[in-house]
């Protein structure tokens, strides 16, 4: 494997670890929330619903992640 490929793979691993880390559920939730709100706001024109959906989605995702962490200690 060339040095460039190794460096690229190492960099990719660093980026994934940096943004995803040990909480992949938060990364995928944020992505899901943005796509859903984007469709609701830009696609369907539901701006007011989107304004509620976004913070609600964040609180829900964080709550589920905390519950998951608590279950790991049981």
């Amino acid at each position, binding site marked *: 494997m060339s040095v460039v490929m190794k460096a690229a793979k190492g960099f990719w691993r660093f980026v994934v670890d940096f943004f995803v880390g040990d*909480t992949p559920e938060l990364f995928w939730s944020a992505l899901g929330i943005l796509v859903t709100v984007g469709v609701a706001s830009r696609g369907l024109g539901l701006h007011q619903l*989107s304004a509620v959906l976004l913070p609600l989605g964040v609180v829900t995702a964080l709550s589920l992640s905390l519950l998951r*962490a608590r279950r790991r*200690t049981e």
Partner: protein
Amino acid sequence: MMLAVGLHSSDLVLVVAVFLACSVEMVEALTIVLAVGTTRGWRSAFEGTAVALICLGALVGIFGPTLVRVPLDWLRVFVGGVLLVFGAQWLRKSILRASGLKAQHDEDEIFAETVAELDEIGNRADRDRLAFVMAFKGVFLEGVEVVVTVLTLGASSHRMGLAALSATVALFLVGVAGVLVGRQLSEVPENAMKMVVGVMLLSYGTFWSGEGLGIRWLGADAMLFGFVALYGAFAFGAVKTLQRNTYEGGPVR
């Protein structure tokens, strides 16, 4: 909303968020540099720190101007998304620590562990490769998070100068405090600061990603304070709930 000194209310949140985020990360980096310096000698520790700071400066130089050229709506969605992920990670960790489900970040312990690790290796030289690498890694890895925070918050609000200034002041104050105290800054209420930063990053992330996706927030900039209150109340409630239901088990990752 404008404040008396001519700053927008969003600028205040920006300055506080960047300042606290930089302080927390710099305390962590300083602990490693102090451990390396006292164990293996200061020359290589300072060289590693200096090279890491140059690399971080280069990152800002490369990505700063590029980010500013991205169309505003796309930039806000991207930046908002990054801040949502970062903010959620910071807030989750600080809630778990405050509720006793995760071990507190202990600067004294990190210092002792680093010193023990370096002592075991022995073989000191005038130019110590190991000390250089440890100092570089500590400062660079902690610093990348600072760079991402400064770039994303600064670029999306078009206040890169203000964000950079806030980060520089934090860097300077933590550095001076480290030199004056002469040891790791274990008295800094790191978890509380981390929780405040998590709340602020989440608030900014919600605000910017919403704007980028076409939402016009009620009260415009002032809505940021609404999000700070919402996520702050959530964090408080989550800590209290988890404290009540804490099981006796090992800390989670």
